[in-house]
């Protein structure tokens, strides 16, 4: 099942844990956004393969609701 994972908070991209082609399972953490000195992990909601990653580690000032990782 395909899934588009969006950022749920604005902030800085602290870690990106997957790359295109990686196999992921539902619940796996894909990337972590930092806001208010708090880590906000974003997880896969489905099993699949990472089709595209639209964010980069260290990227600053991302918005909430931005398409970050595509899983298929």
């Amino acid at each position, binding site marked *: 099942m395909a899934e588009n994972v969006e950022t*749920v*908070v*604005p*902030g*800085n991209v602290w870690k990106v844990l997957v790359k295109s082609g990686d196999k992921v399972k539902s619940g796996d953490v894909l990337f972590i956004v*930092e*806001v*208010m*000195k*708090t880590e*906000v992990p974003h997880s896969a909601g489905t099993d699949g393969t990472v089709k595209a990653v639209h964010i980069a580690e260290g990227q*600053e*000032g*991302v*918005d*909430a*609701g931005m398409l970050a990782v595509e899983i298929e």
Partner: protein
Amino acid sequence: MLEVIQSGLETSVQDYPGRLGYWNQGFPPSGPMDSWSFRLANLLVGNAVGAAGLEAQYMGPTLRFQRDGVIAITGADMQPKLDGQALPLWESLAVEAGQTLALGSAKSGVRAYVAVAGGIDTPPWLGSRSTFHKAGVGGMGGYALKKGQVVPVAQGKGTPGRRVKDGCRPVFATDKVWSIEVVAGPNDDWVDGAGHKRFLSSDWKLSSKSDRTGFRLEGPQWTFTEKAHKKAPEHGSEPSNIIDQGYPLGAINLAGQTPIILVNDGPSMGGFICPYTVPSAAFWKLGQSKPGEVYRFKAISVEAAQALARELSAKCSPSSII
């Protein structure tokens, strides 16, 4: 009684005006960052403006009601849903025992407020129910809400269907630019003319390393008067160092070259200069701005800042509710 199903990013009990009177002993007031939205939420449910409610930040909580009641949600739009049905903001609503309120991530603004008729009834500490998590006091055991907790609510009788009058509630910037009032001082004489001009004419970007303690800003370099360079060594090595002093709430504290606005949970003293201070009437704008958004500062007098606070308090009165 509210059962915490999901806590959200950092959801805490706050009251207004918070823990006043202990700043000289290092305790900040805490309280809601956007006290305008907070006070209106209380008025909507028939509470006193200062009654304890919840402040949700960025990502809201999911809560289950253990008895019937009346609630209001104001501030940031976290697209609240009651048992999956979308709810309006800025309006009092009836809820029933067993129903679940879910707040999502903030679509506009940053901080949402949930008031419940009767008010949250956690034990006060030094005269306030506000959470100050750095010291672990107030609120639910001193910290943000945790999954599984049950938040006590006092008995109260609210009326559903009450709304905030047009023009009486805050309007959040939609172009990512906020005009923020500042008052010069207490250490404005440490910054030179070019430094003041630069501060008041530049765009200052809010860093994501900002929280209820301080709002960190990114912008141009500061320049100083002779006072900052030719001083006794006790002041410290940086031009912005000064012998430890008390800070006003809202101080724009210059840590080296980085300005940090000291907000509700901020420190009361330290060894950096504070060239400007954000008056309390502008705090709601800080509380609702996102990282990456821009502040433009506008200098006003102390009298003008006091007038703004009076205007804001006048809007936070029952006359704003219909």
